[in-house]
């Protein structure tokens, strides 16, 4: 499928515009499905989860804008190391990215969702067991 050259820049603008609501939607979705397990991190854990979702969107934006999956993969690998040393499971990192992909697919037009999804998939792939 041929998307216009402007699609990545447009998709990045949408992510920038919706940064807050995307981060909250993904954080809420993660707690809706795994709240019992995540409860051990307490209220501070939930705040940090939301902060991390903001961070995910912040790092997704330039990678989408420049259509640079390797840039996002470098971030995901860095994030994984950071969170792993703080007791966060790899599956939670992956799940956040999956939920972000689901949310952007639900919200945006196909061309925008594809530009975003390609980058998120590269990040997810880097976390899958080899």
């Amino acid at each position, binding site marked *: 499928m041929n998307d216009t050259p402007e699609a990545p820049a447009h998709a990045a603008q949408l992510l920038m515009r919706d940064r807050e609501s995307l981060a909250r939607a993904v954080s809420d979705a993660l707690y809706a499905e795994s709240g019992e397990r995540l409860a051990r991190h307490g209220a501070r854990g939930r705040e940090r989860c939301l902060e991390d979702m903001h961070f995910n969107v912040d790092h997704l*934006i330039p990678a989408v804008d*420049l259509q640079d999956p390797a840039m996002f993969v470098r971030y995901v690998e860095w994030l994984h190391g950071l969170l792993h040393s703080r007791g966060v499971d790899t599956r939670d990192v992956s799940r956040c990215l999956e939920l972000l992909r689901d949310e952007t697919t639900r919200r945006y037009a196909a061309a925008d969702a594809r530009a975003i999804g390609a980058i998120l998939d590269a990040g997810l792939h880097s976390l899958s067991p080899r």
Partner: protein
Amino acid sequence: MMPATAAYLSALRAGDRRAAFRVLDDALDTGAPLAELYLEIVQPSMREIGRLWQENALTVAEEHLATAITETAMNRLFERVFVWRDERTPRLLAACAAEERHQLGLRMLCDLLEMEGWETTYLGASVPIESLVHLVKERAPEAVAISATIAPHLPRVRDAIRAIRAAPLAQQPVIVVGGRAFHGDPTLAERIGADLTAVDATGALLALNERLRPGPNGE
């Protein structure tokens, strides 16, 4: 790791600024040039501090303390090595991308260029694009350096470069970009519109000298 680097890192981890100053003073007294102190003692130590924070071995406060000590240590070092000159050329204007707070690398570049006779204007952390372009128009530097440590700041670097390129200037400056955000991809700088990039301050200094201070035979 060199003994002096290990000692400096140890001083930073202990939050002991006098010990940190002593390490750099002693190294300077042995005749080590500023570039060596910056790139072989200060920079690797600060990278290790960042790595330790990432691994949860240091708190944010401890990481900030290490940065604060290093900023003061660099001020002291530069005071000791600074040489007055009547004329300085070319001129470089240096800024961190909007919202970028990591400024040590850019500061190192400016100090090293000053030692080579350049005139530098160092704007520090988080410079809004409009302010940067305004100053570029006002001062017309031969070079502009923009730094970014993390990827989310890259679109702002690109937008700053576009704004400078679009500004009505008698002569476009050479634009050099650097910082950790550029380390993983050697093509990135060119893709966002920069003329030059380098992995550290010495590399940027060499590239800038080559471009703007060619030798007597034009090499």
